């Protein structure tokens, strides 16, 4: 943010500062004979040196490969709609960044580069599955039907929580790193007791994986065999800190120690993200407990609009990831298989232009909140002290208004 410190700096970066310096284990808890989706099948699929092992269904050049544990049937129409979703959220994201640059938003946290991880996992959910996001899950929000203008409204500061979490089955953004993983487990425990077969996803980042809250949520999820999927977008950076500061073994392998399966998926491969998340959700909803997915991806942009990443990472690194762009990759597949033509791409681009224009004007038209509205939601029910303060401020503001006349 300026806000969200996001907190990170939050704030200051935008003002003075910039100007100056410029695993896999079977689940012991489940007792089920059904085989858990395993990381066992991970293999080196890209042929590049230094490339980690992960589940991949689409190579960077768009070649479709199969994986024994994660079969995926995809109609041409579904493939095209994944492409459309990724293009549209990338456009929403670009508009968020532009609006912030123009002073219309306090802050924006870009998802650039993480479209496949978010759309793949988001589309894997059923409408009744519930997601607990961080502050960067605009793509998941899109899949859960949250209108992008509502997201912008939150970053503009004119609405607190601009959507109804229960209507969208998408919780509000969480700024304090890691808290939501615990909320997700508690929610999943509730789902479990309600007896439904919905599942819950907790999103978090590579940096968040060091927080007690996240690790403790693993313990709880395992202990109660809760229907929760822990979905880590390992985008290689926690603000300026590389993942080597957070872990010395691949993150997904931690799951073994907690007693549930962990897998790593190519986070820039939307098909793999879709298939693996579906399997993990199925694992959860069929009573087999949690699963950890590490989506190996990259934060192409700044941490937030308050950040300047050139200070701490090389442009070579960024460029090497650009070659693995998730949208380019899916397009290569669509072209290779002749699943889409120029008319399709043109339609999607036009739709993106229209969406951008619409959310921009929608954002600018959002009404500023009335100062007295700050008293509205400190408590769910009327509260004497709040009422008193509210009355005092109302009087006080009225006094100024009178002076002006």
């Amino acid at each position, binding site marked *: 943010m300026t806000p969200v410190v996001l907190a990170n*700096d*939050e704030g200051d970066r935008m*003002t003075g*500062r910039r100007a*100056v310096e410029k695993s896999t284990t079977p689940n012991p808890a489940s007792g089920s004979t059904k085989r858990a989706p395993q990381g066992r099948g991970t293999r080196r699929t890209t042929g590049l040196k230094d490339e980690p092992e992960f589940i991949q269904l689409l190579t960077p050049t768009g070649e479709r490969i199969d994986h024994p544990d994660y079969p995926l049937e995809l109609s041409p129409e579904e493939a095209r709609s994944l492409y459309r979703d990724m293009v549209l959220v990338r456009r929403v994201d670009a508009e968020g960044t532009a609006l912030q640059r123009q002073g219309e938003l306090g802050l924006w946290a870009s998802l650039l580069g993480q479209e496949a991880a978010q759309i793949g996992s988001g589309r894997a959910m059923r409408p009744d599955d519930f997601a607990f996001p961080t502050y960067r899950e605009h793509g998941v929000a899109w899949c859960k039907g949250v209108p992008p203008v509502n997201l912008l409204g939150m970053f503009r500061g004119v609405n607190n929580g601009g959507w109804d979490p229960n209507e969208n089955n998408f919780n509000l953004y969480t700024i*304090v790193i890691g808290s939501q993983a615990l909320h997700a487990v508690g929610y999943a425990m509730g789902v479990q007791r309600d007896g439904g077969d919905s599942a819950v996803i907790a999103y978090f980042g590579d940096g968040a994986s060091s927080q*007690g809250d996240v690790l403790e949520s693993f313990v709880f999820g395992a202990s109660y065999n809760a229907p929760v999927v822990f979905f880590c977008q390992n985008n290689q950076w926690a603000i*300026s800190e590389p993942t080597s500061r957070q872990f010395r073994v691949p993150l997904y392998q931690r799951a073994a120690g907690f007693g549930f399966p962990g897998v790593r998926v190519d986070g820039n491969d939307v098909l793999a993200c879709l298939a693996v998340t579906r399997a993990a959700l199925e694992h959860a909803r069929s009573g087999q407990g949690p699963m950890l997915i590490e989506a190996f991806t990259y934060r192409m942009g700044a941490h937030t609009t308050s950040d300047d990443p050139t200070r701490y990472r090389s442009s070579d690194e960024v460029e090497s990831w650009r070659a693995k762009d998730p949208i380019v990759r899916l397009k290569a597949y669509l072209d290779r298989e002749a699943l889409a033509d120029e008319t399709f791409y043109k339609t999607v681009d036009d739709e993106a232009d229209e969406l951008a224009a619409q959310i921009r004007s929608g954002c600018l038209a959002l009404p500023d909140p009335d100062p007295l509205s700050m008293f509205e939601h400190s408590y769910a029910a009327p509260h004497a002290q709040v009422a008193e303060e509210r009355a005092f401020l109302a009087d006080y*503001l009225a006094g100024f208004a009178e002076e002006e006349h």
Partner: protein
Amino acid sequence: MTAGSAATKPQQTTYREAMREAMREALRADERVFLMGEDVGRYGGCFGVSLGLLEEFGPERIRDTPLSESAFVGAGIGAAVAGMRPIVEIMTVNFSLLALDQILNNAATLLHMSGGQLAVPLVIRMTTGAGRQVAAQHSHSLEGWYAHIPGIRVLAPATVADARTVLAAALADPDPVLIFEHGSLYNLSGDPDPGADPVDLGRAAIRRPGTDATIVTFGGCLPKALEAAEELARLDVSAEVIDLRSLRPLDDAAIMSSVARTHHAVVVDEAWRTGSLAAEISARITEQVFYELDAPVERVCSAEVPIPYARQLEEAALPQTADIVAAVQKAVS
């Protein structure tokens, strides 16, 4: 802030730079001193305070930590007990809540629980306060809470000179010291040299003398209080402004002798009014100089709501200059 102004006024520096210079000096002077926290290395800290220190002192002494406040504060306690002099940076006071157990149950208590054997010479720096549109999880003023805790010392430098000198005093203290840096002060520019008025951080400072009313404040509210005093002067009210500097212990003598002269007291505190440091100060004034008062003590605090994000709401929620002027006028009327 610009090179131009630095050239014309060579002693001017910012609060941020003063704090950085103090860290540099401490790191040079004492091998045992090191800095740790999130993004304090190459990034230079969330607010840029440690920018350049990694390059000068290396990653052993300027340590980026895994993302866990509880862990790096706890590790700081361990290092302090082992004889080091750690400076731990927490991005904002809100995130210090993830380390509250380490601060209260451990740092503040170990000396007592060990029968005097385990001193914890730990310094924790953190940003506090609102006014930057960073919403309810980055904007609170919880230093009053910390001032409630026996076993720690709580400091709130509000001027460039105090920012320059606070760290050495904190490091020299054998007990845990919390330093609160109000986010609105980092770009403040001023003279880092306290000159003839050497800084004694245990003592409050009279930032502006006056005869009609005493404004007691600290940290991010000091500039607003001074502005209010200026405005009041135009209205023929002479307000004295006291900057507490130390929130625990409180300098009762400075507060009481001022109130005994002006007979009116207004306490300005960005925290919520209920159970605040402002409440404590007001109680002490009534306990100690009640008969000197010509009017009830006034308090100017934040609205008792989570600090809002929207600019207009945030402004309305925080103590503003006009609110201070109004409170002083009410006290003296």
